[in-house]
């Protein structure tokens, strides 16, 4: 279902969005709907690079049938406003993996909005998100994990980190848990920081110019997000190229 009404900042999921940029591509197309059949495996890479400099929004609604597995790998590097929105519903014993890197500079606004609903028992989900922002850019992660009353033995992980390259950049991270079952594991971790000055100096003392040293540390920071993706090499090299522009 396509969003009929233009959002305002009062809508939680649009709270940090660049609504001016959004207006330039409004109305949005209907969400992409994916149904993964019971026992099947699905994988997709998502690239938001808005090379026209404007806005790019992707909205995916996916349902995983009993015992199905799915992996999404997302690289969000812009235009002015880049948004990935995922609504994922897991049936019994399904498994969902998300690896996402958001890398932005200048005045870019990048965001990842996820709702992972464990509707039935025994589902597992892992989200690994790395954000790197410089300039006055903003990255946001709004990630909700909802566990239904019958979804016992759910095991869910949200692992979110953000790196600020400049003190003028902003990173928002909001994990949100809504749990109605009583026998579940839902781990969530968020960390926001800066590049380690000691490590930077150590690398430079061996002959790496500052930009190269930063790039190496940032490469390590996002390492792992795309591990195992069919598109791993392409995503990594695109991420690296974007890092090269930022440092």
């Amino acid at each position, binding site marked *: 279902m396509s969003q009929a009404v233009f959002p305002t900042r009062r809508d939680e999921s649009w709270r940090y969005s660049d609504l001016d940029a959004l207006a330039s591509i409004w109305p949005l197309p209907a969400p992409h709907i994916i149904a993964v059949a019971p026992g099947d495996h699905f994988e997709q890479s998502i690239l938001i690079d808005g090379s026209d400099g404007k806005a790019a929004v992707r909205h995916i609604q996916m349902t995983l049938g009993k015992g199905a597995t799915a992996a999404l790998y997302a690289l969000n590097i812009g235009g002015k406003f880049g948004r990935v929105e995922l609504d994922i519903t897991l049936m019994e014993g399904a498994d969902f993996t998300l690896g996402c890197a958001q890398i932005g500079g200048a005045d870019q606004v990048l965001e990842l909005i996820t709702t992972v609903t464990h509707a039935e028992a025994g589902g597992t989900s892992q989200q690994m998100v790395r954000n790197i922002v410089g300039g006055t850019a903003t990255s946001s992660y709004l990630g909700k994990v909802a566990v239904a009353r019958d979804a016992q033995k759910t095991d869910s992980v949200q692992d979110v980190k953000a790196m600020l390259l400049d003190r003028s950049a902003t990173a928002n991270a909001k994990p949100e848990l809504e749990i109605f079952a009583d026998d579940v594991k839902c781990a969530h971790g968020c960390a926001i920081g800066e590049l*380690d000055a000691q490590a930077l100096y150590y*690398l430079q003392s061996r002959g*790496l110019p*500052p930009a190269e040293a930063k790039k190496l540390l940032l*490469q390590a920071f996002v*390492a792992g997000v795309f591990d195992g993706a069919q598109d791993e090499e392409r995503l990594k090299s695109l991420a690296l190229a974007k890092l090269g522009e930022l440092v």
Partner: protein
Amino acid sequence: MLTINNLHANVADKPILKGLDLSINAGEIHAIMGPNGAGKSTLSYVLGGRPGYDVTDGSVDFGGADLLDMEPFERAAAGLFLGFQYPVEIPGVSNVQFLRESLNAQRKSRGEAPLSGGEFLKLAREKAALLKMDMDMLKRPVNVGFSGGEKKRNEMVQMGILNPRMAILDETDSGLDIDALRIVGEGINSIMRRPDKAVLLITHYQRLLDYVQPDFVHVLADGRIVKSGGPELAHQLEEYGYAEVVA
């Protein structure tokens, strides 16, 4: 090769070095000893260009160039190597990748062709063998999970690979067991004891000097060199202590 003239330096606005003079020629090995807080590590960091160490007076000439005017990576490319007292752990960045990029960055700034992956690995294998370090450790992230002694040996492997003209080794002997001390000592000799190279060893103890025979020994106290002599000075210090010898 290195001429330090009336060097004054502050750390957090506190004067640490107070008029230090030292001259080191090619082919020489110098040792600096001194009580805790004398300014030994400050000297090494000032020479290495670490941020936070402010030179307030004096000059340092390195092979005809103004060392204090160079960025840390330029000092490395000019042939200066700083062996850290506390080598930094860098998760996610492999030793091999870091060193190859560092070496090639140095070569590039000297107008030399980069080493290929194969050529670099051959060099790395040779230097690792010299320091009796397993190649597998070189493939692991920089210093992560290394013991104190392994970190120091890794510093020496880096020195071997980068092949500097001048090495400043800040307490490279601390944290080493007896066997590792001998291996590191022999490593320093085989890499650096050459007519066109020089070494400045900063140490608390005579032990390392048993393996790496210095040509000159200096006592640093309260930010100045207060006494200089030959290798016998180190023995006197060991026997009588700083207070006695310096008085």
